[in-house]
């Protein structure tokens, strides 16, 4: 950012003739920004942008101030305007960060890929891209991205940790274990415990996962994603109240944690706090647009609230895209019966029976010993 400010100083000189004394305003803006008087800084930058709309650095500084204020929508607009005037990987990285912070992970990924094309050595962009992909559950993409980077920089702990996370979540526990071993070379750590817990989680050893995650919490409770997994382990070992506290803890540190938003939504739905549940689920959907699991949960809340038309529409749309989604067929059957659409309800139940019979047949074939 401060590099931009230096550039802006130079650019602003060009406009020294302006009646409002842009240099003085610019200095005031920087001073206000440095001292955390963000509203004042934003106002001054806006004044300058109004007079000098084609100076990209002014717009990117305004974007940075707005982002620091939490006004990501306007920050994104300013960054986009700045980038139209001048392609600057650092501004694009800021734009990606603004998307990331506003839970638009897909757009953040798009920008980060452009940053990586323009500046392949930008470590921050690579790490943020990996983090974004992890948030979307795109573990294979993270493995592909980080494997060569980690080989080139084998002691980079951030690469090791993120790559280990992606490998384990992708089901490659053997390679994941190698990453855990590398982390453990430096002694026990929350990162290693989280990865060990995640590995056990993936093979349904929930009590084993819980023990590791508890230890991780003791070592570094601020580790991103830790409380989310801890909450899931608590949930799957029967401690719903503890799980809820853990998800709330994760979300207090990272409001855009997908799993914590989803699980909080499900827990609140179970407690029939449907309005609060919907808020979490809508946010989860903002993080992962189109996610079937979240959309299904929202549809079941619509069903519980008696909004049959909404529930029906959402479930039908889910099934159009994912016709094997068993639970969606089950709920859609219920919706149809409540709408007195008996034939449609019976058709959905028949589909459920067909899906279950197919699964049963597959399992029976798999269970037969090889001759």
């Amino acid at each position, binding site marked *: 950012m401060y590099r931009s400010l230096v550039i802006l100083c130079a650019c602003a000189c060009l406009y020294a003739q302006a009646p409002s004394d842009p240099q003085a305003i610019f200095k005031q803006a920087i001073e206000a920004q440095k001292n955390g008087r963000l509203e004042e800084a934003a106002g001054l930058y806006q004044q300058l942008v109004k007079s000098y709309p084609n100076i990209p650095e002014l717009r990117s500084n305004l974007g940075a101030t707005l982002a620091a204020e939490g006004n990501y929508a306007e920050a994104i607009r300013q960054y986009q305007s700045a980038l139209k005037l001048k392609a600057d990987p650092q501004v694009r990285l800021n734009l990606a960060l603004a998307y990331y912070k506003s839970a638009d992970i897909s757009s953040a990924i798009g920008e980060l890929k452009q940053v990586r094309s323009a500046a392949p050595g930008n470590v921050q962009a690579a790490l943020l891209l990996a983090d974004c992909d992890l948030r979307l559950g795109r573990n294979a993409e993270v493995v592909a991205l980080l494997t060569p980077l980690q080989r080139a920089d084998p002691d980079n702990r951030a690469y090791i940790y993120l790559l280990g996370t992606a490998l384990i979540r992708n089901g490659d526990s053997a390679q994941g274990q190698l990453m855990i071993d590398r982390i453990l070379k430096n002694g026990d750590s929350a990162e290693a415990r989280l990865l060990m817990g995640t590995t056990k989680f993936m093979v349904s050893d929930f009590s084993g996962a819980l023990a590791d995650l508890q230890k991780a919490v003791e070592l570094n409770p601020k580790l991103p994603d830790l409380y989310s997994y801890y909450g899931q382990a608590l949930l799957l070992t*029967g401690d*719903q109240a503890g799980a809820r506290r853990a998800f709330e803890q994760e979300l207090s540190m990272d409001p855009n944690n997908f799993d914590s938003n989803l699980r909080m939504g499900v827990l609140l739905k179970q407690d029939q706090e449907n309005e609060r549940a919907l808020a979490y689920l809508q946010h989860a959907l903002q993080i992962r647009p189109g996610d079937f699991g979240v959309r299904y949960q929202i549809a079941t809340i619509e069903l519980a609230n008696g909004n049959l038309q909404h529930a029906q529409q959402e479930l039908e749309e889910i099934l159009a895209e994912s016709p094997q989604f068993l639970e969606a067929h089950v*709920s859609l059957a219920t919706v149809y*019966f409540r709408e007195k659409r*008996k034939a449609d309800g*019976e058709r959905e139940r028949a589909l459920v029976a067909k899906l*279950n*019979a197919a*699964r*049963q047949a597959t399992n029976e074939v798999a269970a037969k010993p090889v001759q």
Partner: protein
Amino acid sequence: MTAVVFALLASLPAAAFGPALRECANCHPAQAKPHPASAMAQALEPASSGALLQSHRSLAFKSGAFSYRIERHGNESIYTVTDGGQTISTPLLWSFGAGSLGQTYVYSWGGQLYQSRVSFYRALDGLDFTMGARNSNPKDLTEAAGLRMSKDDQVQCFSCHATHAAQGRNPDLLHMTPGVQCERCHGETGNHLAGLQSGNAAQAHLNSLHSLSTEGQSNFCGGCHRTWDQIASSPGLGVLNVRFQPYRLTNSKCYDVDDRRIACTACHDPHQPLSHDAAAYDRQCQACHAGGKPSAHACKVAATGCSGCHMPKVEVPDAHHSFTDHQIRIVRANAPYPE
């Protein structure tokens, strides 16, 4: 706090939980009088007063390193589990199940409620693993003795085996009445009585299963016996799902959401002990299959004993009992159990 509550529970006399049935019986004797003998009414009883535990004064079971005993001492049945070194010994608080098939017990340990790892089975006249516990691998004596019940577990278990066992999502074991009593299905009777006294018909209204559609009944009874939705969404249970009658019945070809002849109460009166009279069930089948419904064909093999062929008994591993499969169908030889 929890420990105090359970200590209180353990010390309360059984009479404190006696069913408030008398007032209902004044006006509804046909339903209220036979009800106490039903399995529904006996779905839960204090271990201190349970007939089964009184008649079985000493029960024992051993598995690997762990030995289990339930022994009667005065009004208490003491559950003792030992690995030969350490021992857990505590009075049983609650008996789940009428005992006609079996009973599972709940006890308090360390201020928490636990479900016993062993249960009584009528077919064995003794103890064996509680369903689902055989393959568990206890890490310590506490786990070997039983499974800790979370708050949600308590709400789910007690709410189906007792009346007024929960306040919202919280268990309320102090104020519950053991067993499925009138108000468990029909709702609060206070307003009903007040409405009757004041002549206010709207206030006197009570929930009635007969006012529900077949689908509505299936979902209502399924609140405890599991609904089609619940089980259909969790496939892979195999023959274990035979115990979930509303799900099985809904899968029947003859199930019709609008036809009351296939509703739960068409065959079962929840106020009465379960009928084992096959002829009584035949009448329900013939209500459709003897010309009452054009799409329902008459059986070419027999006119009686319908349920014997079309609702076969299915042995459930570890339950030591064969359950009637409510998925009514033509059963083919060697056909797999339709999940």
